[in-house]
């Protein structure tokens, strides 16, 4: 148990520390650590958590830390607390330092060059998260492909809200599968 708690802490600390580019970019990192490296979740379970995170309030990083902390420890709240604490810790400390030296950071061209330069790479990380989930676990047959295309059209062209799309997809899933 203590071993898992330490692993959870280290893993989510790392996710928090390198989680540039917002929630979606952090997804590929969470998936890499939690599904590939530690195998705490299957790809299907991970996708379910992303869906749950998108339909509940709060940042995806915190939602997935709380959820994975619970399941990885076999249903213990201590796992949730450790993982959530660990994912918030790095950004809290970094943000405190930035607040203290706000002016110095604002003028530092290296700091902002690094940040600007990371934008294309973090965009790629979001794409990687989507690509890694495009597999036979999540796409059972042509009906899955149809749902994926329909969801894309609703979100991108018609600007329908995320929760409505997830709700609709759930109804279609229940009827079609």
């Amino acid at each position, binding site marked *: 148990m203590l071993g898992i708690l330490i692993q959870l802490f280290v893993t989510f600390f790392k996710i928090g520390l390198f989680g540039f580019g917002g*929630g979606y970019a952090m997804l590929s990192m969470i998936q890499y650590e939690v599904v590939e490296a530690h195998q705490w979740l299957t790809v299907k379970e991970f996708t379910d958590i992303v869906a749950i995170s998108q339909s*509940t309030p709060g940042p995806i990083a*915190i939602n997935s830390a709380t959820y994975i902390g619970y399941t990885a420890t076999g249903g213990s709240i201590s796992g949730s607390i450790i993982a959530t604490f660990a994912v*918030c810790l790095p950004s809290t400390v970094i943000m405190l330092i*930035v607040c203290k030296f706000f002016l110095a950071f604002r003028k530092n061209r290296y700091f902002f*060059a690094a940040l600007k*330069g990371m934008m294309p790479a973090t965009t790629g990380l979001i794409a990687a998260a989507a690509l890694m989930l495009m597999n036979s676990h999540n796409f059972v047959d042509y009906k899955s492909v149809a749902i994926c295309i329909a969801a894309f059209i609703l979100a991108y062209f018609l600007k329908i809200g995320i929760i409505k799309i997830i709700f609709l997809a759930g109804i279609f*899933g*229940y009827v079609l599968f």
Partner: protein
Amino acid sequence: MKQYLNLFISFFKIGAFTLGGGYVMIPLIEKEVVSKRKWINSEEFVEMLTLAQSVPGPVAINTAVFIGYKIKGMKGMLATVLGTVIPSFVIILLIAVFFTEFENSKAVERIFCGIRPAVVALIAVPVINILKHSGFKIHIIAIAAASAISVWLLGISPVIVIIVSGLCAIVYNTFISKQC
């Protein structure tokens, strides 16, 4: 004491009502901390947002740290961070308890069979939006594609991608490009 409570309540609201996360919550944060509480003015808000989006971690947490620390120091920061985290922590914990019970039910499995491919589409949408915003510049698309392929096909850790891209940007900015 009242100030701590106000900080906690404001950020509890932000944590509890920002469905979908990220950019959805920025207007709500602005309404709470600028228009309603007047903790910072709108100019400071824009500066803070740039910082909160630049450092790693969830934007909501970074904003909470900035405001809490600015108004009431370390204890204020504790109030705002806890306020942001507690709503999603409690909701997800309840779902986790419920979901691990019903995960193997046929009905739940069928519902999620429909949701999973939709999730893939929902993650793809921001990628296209960001590329569109940057004007579909060829070097941005190339770097994004390289980083996506590194993680997706080559199995390289996203942490390595972040470190390498940050270093490349500093080197490029220092030695090649003279304007910042």
